[in-house]
């Protein structure tokens, strides 16, 4: 019974929901994230910046503005998303991504502190518009792998890739 309570308590302690723009965020316990200890402040900053990256992605793909990616993305992730923005603009397509829930698991923090990897089971709605005409709204549940790297003032997403659940 005591053991059960301890387990339940630790699970409860590890799960918290941030009411940020009505996005539900659950973070798995991160006792071990590889070779480097993940400090609470670093963890909070990584989660904050990753969630912000979803807002940046959403704005960029809705407004077809690649510059909105600059704050949150870097490297290949930024290039690929910027290419998508350009393709959309060329085709007259817009997409609205509205993330509703994230189930995050920080799985790796590299020994030298230069990269952190997280897995995100995310639920979001996507609206597809062609020349301003709304074609569909679809609810999606997908699992994303993201790698973030530190920059001067924030963590930026360097790898952003969905994988089959």
């Amino acid at each position, binding site marked *: 019974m005591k053991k059960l309570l301890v387990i339940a308590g630790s699970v409860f302690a590890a799960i918290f929901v941030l009411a940020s723009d009505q996005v539900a965020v659950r973070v798995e316990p991160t006792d071990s994230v590889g*070779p480097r200890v993940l400090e609470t402040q670093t963890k909070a900053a990584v989660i904050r910046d990753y969630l912000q990256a979803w807002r940046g*992605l959403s704005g960029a*793909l809705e407004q077809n503005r690649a510059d909105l990616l600059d704050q949150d993305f870097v490297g290949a992730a930024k290039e690929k998303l910027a290419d*998508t923005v350009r393709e959309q603009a060329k085709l007259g397509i817009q997409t609205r991504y509205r993330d509703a829930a994230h189930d995050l698991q920080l799985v*790796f923090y590299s020994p030298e502190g230069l990269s952190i990897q997280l897995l995100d089971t995310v639920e979001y709605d*996507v609206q597809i518009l062609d020349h301003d005409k709304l*074609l569909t709204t679809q609810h999606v549940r997908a699992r994303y792998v993201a790698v973030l790297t530190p920059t001067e003032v924030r963590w930026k997403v360097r790898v952003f*890739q969905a*994988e089959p659940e």
Partner: protein
Amino acid sequence: MKSRFTFLLSGLVLAAMQFALAQSGGLRLPKTVEAGSAFSIQSTGSGKAVLYVVGPGQVLRRNVQLGETAFFAPGGLHNAGHYLVLLVGESSTDNGAFDVVAANQPAALSFLAKPSRLPVDLRDGISGVVYVFDTFQNLVLAPTQVSFQLSGAAGAVQTRTVLTRNGLAWTKMDSEAKEGAAQFVARVGSVTGTRVIEQVPGDPCRLRVSARPAGQRLAVETEPVRDCSGNAVLDGTIVTFTESYKGGEATVDVPLKHGVARTEMPAYEGARISVATGVVMGNEIRWGKER
């Protein structure tokens, strides 16, 4: 000729589509497609329609004829991710989804090795992290074997083989006992990444000073200063000589030159001369008779 080409393309498409097709309304979709491979989407019905394939990584739009199969050539969809499919006809709309997965063939590594310079003989002092990518810069998430090898100036080789998890593998290596540049190599199949790690002598291990008369003064000199592995400590390392005598103290900081520090100090009878560098203390000598 055209039918032969269509047949060939169909064969390619079938080979590229992994696993079963997923039926979604009037759409027949692959469940997964390997990045950069050909694939096809089959629809039912008749009339004209517009087919959309939409994901954060890529967007495609194509006019199609309902009831026919839309073929997408190799390279058409090359960014791994989750894609929505929307088929908008004149009187109906169908949708579905599929995943594009990274190609299993690694084509590039992102190899982070740290630090670039460290003291010799440090356990787990060197770390290496490898992210494995395919030719389209997708992270290869299927477990992949990565071999790490550290070979130094002394010829000693350390190797580790690690299976990737979520696209990455990491390891730690010891720095060698002998100073010099070491090659740190990560290899996945035929793809390699190499970093050079400079291994420098550690802290001095034994510090000894001696003195001899030099006219009216004392010439003090250390023995060649080495670390605990026998490597000569780097020239320029500061050695501090301290002379304590009745009523006073003199201190001289001298950089190592050719592994030795030497200077001249006042020759006070009964003076005590000690030597230190960093946190390492050497011996102490007494000059002459104490008055």
